[in-house]
């Protein structure tokens, strides 16, 4: 009987870091073209619309960056936590609570200089995210309760909290729409380039990414966090305070996710709305994983998924294919990538029949 077996490589395959993600994207396109066919569209045209078109128009390209901004942030938040061995799957909830805090302070910043207004928004968002991340983090580090479950449960809780506020105390008194009061001009993130929606939030995202990259890859704290993530047992043996490191990573991650909420309120929506996130926190897990928990990778993966998002909506307008195609593509891409990336460390061996 002949068989194919998976065998460990003695050295990890260096070029694989570049080649394998491309392979994963190709396989994903092949697989998802089935869905496109089923929706009576031509996959080539649709994929052209998604992956090439944005580079041919200034507006689409900048719109992709607008769409990438929150993904950079949530991706960074998740990567920071995962690197440290803290499975924060609650970026969605933390983002929402960050947005609540920012939308709460935003209308009350009248009269302050814009620079303070923006800073106040960012800090309010960070604080909100941190608060929402604090409970699971303490439960994990003090009582050893699985953070995966608690962070997950707090996501629908935050969604309901937003809806409850908007249908209750925060309902717009004038329009009676379920959206909060508009933030003041001083709290608005300025637009960076005219005739686009690209705003100061993009700068915030880049700054956060640089800071996290420096901390994780260059600082002693980062080395300790990575050690705790790779082997908590080994880290503890080497005298590191693993619980403290987890707490730091969890709160940092929550704060970054909260900043994402502030950026959405301050730069795009200018108020709290029910659908303000729409799963950006979950997509952040995708971004972090696809990016190999590495900040440069997060940037690349965030941009790629933003292309898919923006492209899927324009493919929706042009070809009438459901915009949910973007979730189909990103979900498949995630599973295919984690599978394909294995081959950095393993290779296939074909055994002939004896």
């Amino acid at each position, binding site marked *: 009987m002949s068989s194919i077996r*998976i065998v460990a490589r003695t050295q990890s395959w260096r070029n694989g870091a570049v080649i394998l993600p491309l392979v994963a994207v190709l396989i994903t396109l092949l697989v998802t073209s089935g*869905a496109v066919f*089923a*929706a009576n569209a031509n996959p080539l045209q649709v994929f052209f619309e998604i992956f090439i078109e944005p580079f041919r128009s200034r507006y689409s390209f900048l719109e992709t960056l607008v769409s990438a901004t929150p993904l950079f942030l949530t991706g960074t938040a998740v990567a920071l936590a995962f690197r440290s061995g803290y*499975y924060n*799957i609650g970026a969605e909830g933390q983002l929402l609570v960050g947005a609540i805090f920012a939308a709460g302070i935003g209308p009350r910043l009248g009269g302050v200089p814009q620079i303070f207004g923006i800073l106040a928004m960012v800090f309010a968002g960070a604080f909100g995210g941190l608060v929402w991340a604090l*409970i699971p983090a303490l*439960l994990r580090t003090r*009582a*050893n*309760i*699985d953070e*995966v*479950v*608690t962070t*997950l*449960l*707090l*996501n*629908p*809780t935050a969604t*309901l*909290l937003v*809806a*409850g*506020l908007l*249908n*209750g*105390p925060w309902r717009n008194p004038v329009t009676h729409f379920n959206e909060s009061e508009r933030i003041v001009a001083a709290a608005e993130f300025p637009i960076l380039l005219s005739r686009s929606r690209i705003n100061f939030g993009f700068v915030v995202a880049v700054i956060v990414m640089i800071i996290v990259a420096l901390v994780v890859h260059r600082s002693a704290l980062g080395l300790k966090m990575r050690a705790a993530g790779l082997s908590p047992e080994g880290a503890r043996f080497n005298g590191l305070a693993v619980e403290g490191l987890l707490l730091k990573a969890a709160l940092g991650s929550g704060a970054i996710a909260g900043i994402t909420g502030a950026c959405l309120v301050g730069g795009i929506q200018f108020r709290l709305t029910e659908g303000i996130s729409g799963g950006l926190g*979950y*997509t952040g*897990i*995708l971004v972090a*994983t696809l990016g190999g928990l590495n900040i440069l990778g997060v940037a690349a993966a965030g941009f790629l998924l933003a292309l898919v998002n923006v492209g899927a909506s324009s493919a929706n307008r042009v070809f009438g*294919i*459901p*915009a*949910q*195609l*973007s*979730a*189909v*593509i*990103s*979900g*498949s891409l*995630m*599973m295919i990538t*984690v*599978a394909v990336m*294995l081959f950095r460390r393993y290779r296939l061996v074909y055994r002939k029949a004896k």
Partner: protein
Amino acid sequence: MSFLVNVLEAMLRVSTPLALGSSGEVVTERSGVLNLGIEGTMYAGAFFGFYAAYQTDSRWVGLAVAIAVGALAGALLSFLVVTLGVNQHTAGLGMTIFLIGTSEFVNRAALGTGFGTSLKVETFGVIKPFGLGGIAAQYGMTYVTLLIVVPCLWWMLRHTSLGLAITAVGENPEAADVAGINVKLTRYIALIIGGMLMAAGGAFLTLATLGSFTLDIIAGRGWVCLALVIFGRWGVFRALAGGLLFSFVYALQFRLRLLDAWQGVPFELLLALPYLITIVALVASGRNAKYPGAYLKPYRRA
């Protein structure tokens, strides 16, 4: 009195998908694998069950299709985490995102509906055994779940060699291997059984209670099931007890909303209550819970 009857009647109904989902997750985790695809599997079960029932005009076909989709989802996740041994957190979450995306994509493409929907299917009805009403008036699926599926699973785990094998590969796959058990096959079976149960739990919502499909229909019930498994320390009856607790709080807030005294409170805040109670229950019972010995660890012979 009728208030309590109403609450208990609703509790049993609400607990049905949780009972199915959490027993599916118990079987899966007992084999040492975490299935974070549970939310998506329940979602896909709800949608594809509805879709098949709508297309064929048969709720039975709908249920069968839902279960088949759950089995497929379990098999696909097994391929990723058992055969390839990839990280179970990411594979499971990818699965959830993929299944929810696919369900909504097909919903949009084939049924042409997005927000809310008016499409309806004939549902499994409520039965009143011996003409009893009140608490006893429940869906047939609820009766089958609570009186047949969950006890059978308990029996399977305890009294069959499959059950013993599932526990063994979850605790110590090396030992199971040496004992002549096919570790990977056993995990595949556990994940497929688990996926079938989860999808059936999702299908209960469309094919019994609602008769239609709406977006975000699962609304975190899958995540609740994950908590119930830990709360129940990997036992199906104990997880069910947790599910009943969640459902009681859920049913209670649902009834409270109708009282005048609570009119001012936005109902969403009450709706968040069961999730918070679940976390509290987890804190009360799940401190230093003892996970299966090989939890999250792929098995590969040295």
